[in-house]
């Protein structure tokens, strides 16, 4: 350990710590431009200068590379320090007058203009890109080329680098957003940005990311498929930044088995893929977007910060919202998805409010049952949103008139006017159907759930037991049971939780009265029933030399009864004689 004083404050740090790191620990700000916590110090920018006070005079040193020593006294705020930093900043500003990071820092020191001859570079040779490529990525695709005034960052021979992996780390660390580290200068490889799942691919994310702003738990995750450290063993830059030491690259997936008394199935829904209806142009025509795409665009935390913009970056002048995409359509889903009318109205309202654009809602029927919903619809009618009753035939970019040039044309029938209409618009939103998740089959099998029409999970009874599944102890909540909006999902979720609690609170379990039993006198000890039971509810009682049914485990399927060759197994409520009597009743 070494002990030093910075601006009169004492601190003990480990041997090998730099003065800058020690100051950081004390919370003393030292400006830097070429420092990065995950890279070795380089001392290129010289704005982190501090004054070291010695018994005989003092010296100006770069704090990012100067190791702390015992008894050292450091000043970061003397006139001399400020004066020297200002000179450094003026020199940097003269080289790169347009670089934001330098201008901001210079501004902080009251410098708006450099007195030195101006150049127009956008790179001040901090070397961060070179260091990250070498040290972190282990690639070494770029380095400094030439010397002195000619010095610049480039791949060897000023040509495209064959070894560059197009990871983009150099661009991320570059404080100047310099042109010299743009992909077209570095490599002929195509970079593959990681699309943000939450933003529907409309924005990009890093390999370590917090899934979305309201994520629970609100913690970052590492995308193992894209993380350089997990893929190649290089990088690991995030580890250098995590003060809590929470990043552990050796962590493995773990599977935990939890024993529970009841299960609430709330696996939700998927959105119908608009690409399936090719004539609406989703995925083919620009500015045709799904409801989720629009939701992200209109959201304040979305890729456009809540501004409603077309892919050209302009606010739209007219927008068409197509209802029932994949719902109420015998080719896709026959059911009504229930929520689309209301969210389409919400979208119409948002577009009107934010852009003042003309909004067309092409609907089959407006379905607005729910508290305050019809009132909202009325309000939109007054706001001047256009409602066209009729199914949209197609969305095309083939213009027939001058007015349609450069626009999307929504071709639809207006059944109230009795006309076919062509609506030139700038943006089309598809209100797509809600459908069961792609793996709902697997989930259904896992929990022995039945499926109703449309493959949503089936409740025990549509009116009297809308939360319970056919299997005791399993409850359904939300859109996995059928399309529903947020209030209904919340209500069903709360009901499912209450059902599960009441089962736990009772403290005892009521058995179905239809379990099987074995008549001891008839049992021939053949043990055939034991192998037939899917629940292992039959055991052989060695002491009494007969097979025995454990009533608590028996689910009452009756398979053992059929299997028993000596007729010793019987199912209460479904005994052979009872079924024969039923048959006799039916047939005579």
């Amino acid at each position, binding site marked *: 350990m070494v002990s030093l004083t910075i601006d009169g404050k004492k601190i003990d740090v480990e041997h090998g710590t730099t003065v800058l790191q020690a100051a950081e620990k004390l919370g003393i700000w030292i400006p830097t431009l070429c420092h990065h916590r995950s890279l070795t110090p380089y001392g290129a920018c010289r704005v982190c200068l501090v004054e070291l006070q010695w018994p005989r005079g003092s010296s100006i040193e770069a704090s990012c590379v100067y190791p702390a020593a015992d008894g050292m006294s450091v000043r970061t705020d003397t006139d001399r320090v400020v004066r020297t930093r200002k000179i450094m900043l003026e020199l940097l500003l003269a080289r790169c007058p347009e670089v934001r990071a330098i201008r901001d820092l210079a501004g902080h020191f009251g410098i708006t203009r450099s007195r030195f001859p101006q150049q127009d570079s956008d790179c001040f040779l901090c070397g961060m890109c070179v260091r990250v490529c070498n040290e972190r990525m282990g690639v070494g695709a770029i380095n400094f080329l030439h010397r002195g005034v000619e010095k610049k960052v480039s791949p060897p021979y000023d040509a495209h680098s064959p070894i560059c992996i197009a990871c983009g780390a150099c661009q991320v660390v570059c404080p100047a957003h310099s042109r010299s580290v743009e992909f077209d200068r570095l490599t002929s490889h195509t970079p593959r940005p990681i699309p943000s799942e939450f933003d529907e691919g409309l924005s990009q994310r890093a390999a370590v990311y917090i899934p979305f702003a309201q994520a629970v738990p609100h913690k970052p995750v590492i995308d193992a498929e894209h993380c350089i450290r997990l893929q190649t063993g290089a990088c690991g830059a995030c580890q250098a930044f995590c003060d809590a030491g929470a990043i552990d690259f050796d962590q493995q997936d773990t599977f935990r088995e939890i024993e529970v008394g009841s299960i609430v199935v709330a696996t939700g829904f998927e959105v119908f893929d608009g690409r399936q209806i090719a004539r609406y142009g989703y995925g083919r025509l620009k500015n045709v977007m799904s409801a989720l795409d629009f939701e992200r665009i209109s959201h304040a935390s979305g890729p456009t910060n809540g501004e409603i913009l077309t892919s050209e970056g302009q606010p739209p002048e007219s927008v068409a919202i197509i209802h029932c995409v994949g719902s109420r359509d015998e080719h896709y889903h026959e059911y009504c998805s229930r929520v689309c009318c209301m969210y389409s109205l919400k979208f119409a309202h948002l577009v009107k409010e934010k852009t003042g654009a003309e909004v067309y809602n092409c609907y089959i029927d407006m379905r607005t049952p729910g508290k305050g919903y019809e009132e909202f619809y009325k309000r939109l009618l007054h706001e001047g949103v256009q409602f066209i009753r009729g199914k949209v035939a197609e969305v095309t970019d083939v213009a027939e008139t001058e007015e349609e040039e450069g626009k999307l044309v929504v071709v639809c029938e207006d059944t109230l006017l009795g006309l076919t209409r062509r609506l030139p618009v700038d943006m089309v939103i598809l209100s797509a159907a809600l459908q069961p998740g792609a793996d709902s089959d697997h989930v259904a099998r896992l929990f022995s759930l039945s499926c*109703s*029409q449309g493959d949503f999970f089936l409740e025990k009874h549509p009116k009297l037991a809308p939360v319970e599944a056919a299997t005791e102890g399993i409850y359904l909540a939300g859109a996995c049971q059928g399309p529903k909006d947020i209030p209904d999902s919340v209500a069903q979720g709360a009901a499912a939780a209450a059902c599960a609690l009441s089962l736990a609170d009772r403290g005892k379990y009521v058995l179905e009265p239809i379990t099987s039993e074995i008549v001891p006198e008839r049992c021939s000890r053949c043990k055939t029933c034991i192998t*037939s039971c899917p629940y292992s509810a039959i055991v052989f009682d060695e002491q009494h030399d007969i097979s025995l049914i454990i009533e608590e485990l028996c689910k009452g*399927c009756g398979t053992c009864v*059929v299997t028993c060759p000596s007729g010793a197994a019987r199912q209460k409520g479904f005994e052979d004689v009872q079924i*024969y009597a039923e*048959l006799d009743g*039916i047939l005579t």
Partner: protein
Amino acid sequence: MADTQFEPKLVGFLCRWCSYTGADLAGTSRKEYPPNLTPLRVMCSGRVDPTFVLHALAQGADGVLIAGCHPGDCHYKEGNYKAMRRYRMLLELLDTFGIERDRVRLEWISASEGDLFAETVADLTDKVRQLGPLNWSANWEENGERSEALQAIVLEHERAMEVVR
């Protein structure tokens, strides 16, 4: 006989979870299908003893439907697989009796397949109608009332096999 159509008597063993619910759906969604089939609810198609089918035929049924959950969907994990195996054996047995295989059908009908249930009943009714009456019970009806006669045969068989009740 020529102007009155033969109406077969059919019995359906329906599993409580899938097929019975499917039949219920056919009813609640007002599907039309012939009234010839009378459903009989069992907990699982695995509960359907082949004897039940033979008993039904012996008692005067012209055809039998056994319906359960789709393979892999059984509420009791594997009851329908057992039904499937028993059904295969039952068909062999029907051959030895000289009963047409088309009279007994095994079908997988899920809770959402009300349409399939209606179609299956209509199709089975049609097939059995073409086959004509089975009238298996005529063999023993001459010995008195049908079920009593059948019971007498069973007892006679049990005595011969020395079955202890």
